[in-house]
């Protein structure tokens, strides 16, 4: 007897063309999923130049499917064949967000794209771990991240999107909204920073606007915004460091480069 297969969607925001270094392992991964008791429900892709827009579109499409899990693959990463199975196993105790580990693209200084939030709101990269550990963090890069649909459903339930009077939209946690929101009002302080407080006016949108799971905001990438929303809704973020991925430049940057980066200054020859 075996359990029912886990149903997943692959979410691939991409722009431009991908090299064979990327799509060959991608095809192989997809082809092997059924052998790992994983049912690939759909491959969801969006390819504008706006990565947050792509991810939101993909997520909305995912929520229309019956898949339980959305597995994010970035168009410049190579993930191990066993990544999805391993992450599903890691999540079998109820985790809803768990990712693999990969590094920034600088071959001489590859930094883990896995972050801990500091008290001042900035993020620092994971610094010390043993490969194979499963760690709770605050944010990851979005490649090789397995997310359960409840993460998005909870964000959808707990956030609301308002229109910025000066243009654009932004999603807010409902608990952060106090007092009334008007559909058309302004004041001389709008857009001004007064005593260090930004007076930014938001109004009700003319027609309902979907919650944004991912937003580029305040100069930060869309993944940080997503993880903050997810954590605000009670979800925890884990990295399974046994799932090692590569980041493509003209070649894959991975664990080998990281080891050199860490140990070469110590005079250790690898």
């Amino acid at each position, binding site marked *: 007897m*075996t*359990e029912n297969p886990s149903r997943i969607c692959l979410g691939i925001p991409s722009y431009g063309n991908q090299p064979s270094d990327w799509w060959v392992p991608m095809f192989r991964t997809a082809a092997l999923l059924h052998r790992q*008791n994983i049912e690939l429900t759909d491959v969801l892709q969006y390819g504008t130049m706006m990565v947050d827009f792509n991810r939101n579109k993909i997520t909305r499409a995912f929520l229309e499917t019956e898949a339980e899990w959305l597995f994010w693959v970035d168009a410049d990463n190579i993930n191990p064949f066993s990544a999805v199975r391993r992450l599903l196993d*890691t999540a079998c105790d109820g985790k809803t967000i768990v990712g693999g580990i990969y590094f920034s693209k600088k071959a001489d200084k590859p930094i883990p794209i896995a972050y801990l939030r500091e008290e001042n709101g900035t993020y620092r990269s994971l610094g010390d771990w*043993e490969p*194979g550990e499963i760690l709770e963090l605050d944010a990851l890069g979005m490649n090789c991240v397995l997310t359960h649909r409840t993460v998005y459903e909870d964000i959808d339930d707990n956030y609301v999107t308002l229109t910025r009077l000066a243009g654009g939209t932004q999603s807010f946690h409902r608990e952060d909204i106090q007092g009334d929101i008007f559909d058309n009002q302004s004041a001389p302080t709008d857009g001004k920073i007064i005593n260090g407080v930004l007076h930014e006016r938001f109004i009700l949108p003319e027609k309902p606007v979907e919650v944004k799971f991912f937003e580029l905001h305040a100069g930060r990438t869309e993944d940080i915004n997503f993880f903050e929303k997810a954590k605000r809704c009670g979800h925890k973020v884990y990295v*399974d460091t046994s799932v090692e991925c590569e980041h493509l430049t003209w070649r894959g940057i991975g664990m080998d480069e990281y080891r050199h980066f860490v140990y070469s200054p110590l005079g250790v020859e690898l």
Partner: protein
Amino acid sequence: MRILVIGDGFDLAKEQWPEAGIDTCKLNKVKSMPGLYDRVFSLNQLQMVYRQDIVDTLKLWGSKLKEGGELHLFAPSFEWAAKHAILSNKLPLLFSHHLEGDKDNPKRSIHLARQLRVDMEDAGLRVTSARVGLYTKLVEGEECAAGQHYMIARRKIGQRIVLPKKSNKPLTDELLILDPSKCDPLPIESGGWNYVLDYYWLVEQVINHGGKKILDVGSLYSNLDFFLKEYLGVEIRTVERNQSIGADYSCDFSDLPDDGFIPDIIMWASSIEHNSIEDIRRYYLESMGRLKKGGLFIATFAISQKTAWHEATKQTNLSMEDAKKVFDMEAIQGNLAEIKKMYQDNVHSLRSNYRSIFGKFDASDPEYVVGAVRKVKR
């Protein structure tokens, strides 16, 4: 909550789960521990296992887990030792303890977390937590810290126990030779070469009958009993005439005291055969006499071409004709030759198991196969 502590981790387990009932056993006694546990806790035991046996060892530990149960595993970290050696340019004090073994424990080995993750997967376990931390150990009077892995894993749901489906048909009397092709092995450890068939059929009968009080005759608490308790929620009492075995009733079945326990089911799991043919009949009749109306008598026993005493197993193998007479049945289901062929084809490893017990498996083997009888008290 029930916890199995392998080796010396009792105090740590008690500290972590103060309300739990804790059984302990040595590394080489895990297999014989009956029943299933919410937690299996192993503190620095895996390093005592030969590298090539690690996956099988982990499988065994995993097999002791209930559905949803967790294996908590501590094992020395190779990464810690290696990093310590590289960075300090000397071997840490505990390195030899970690890596090279000592005279008391020559099998010691240490583990890479990533390799251990793969070993766990190969053993059908899902790792849900994996951390590295420090533990302390006295070495030559000095307290030393060393790195170790702490992993928590669950048994893969793919191993979830699937019980036989309850039949909608009313229970009738039945005498049959058990057909291996109709058996879907249950994860019950046993020493019997053919018990895979006995256990499946017996569990199936208990499910179909629905009785909640079982008298298991000729047994101490076996893994079958624990399985029935665990998964069907039945109350079981055991009878065993061998006084040295701790059953509920250490007496002959005929001498059972009247203490108010009235079983819904009397079960002889490959035990009634360890008697003469006359006593088999007598025990059958006494069993039926003890049952209330609607109660169930179930027994598995040995069937062969001819009725004969089988010295190696100290049992009477019944011919099909004699089985009918003993259990008051007019017919027996199953074709002995066809079913023997399945044993020869090694269905459910029956041929291999037989050979491991008797040291051979010739063209005419097995000498006997598993028969079963079900009688409903009218």
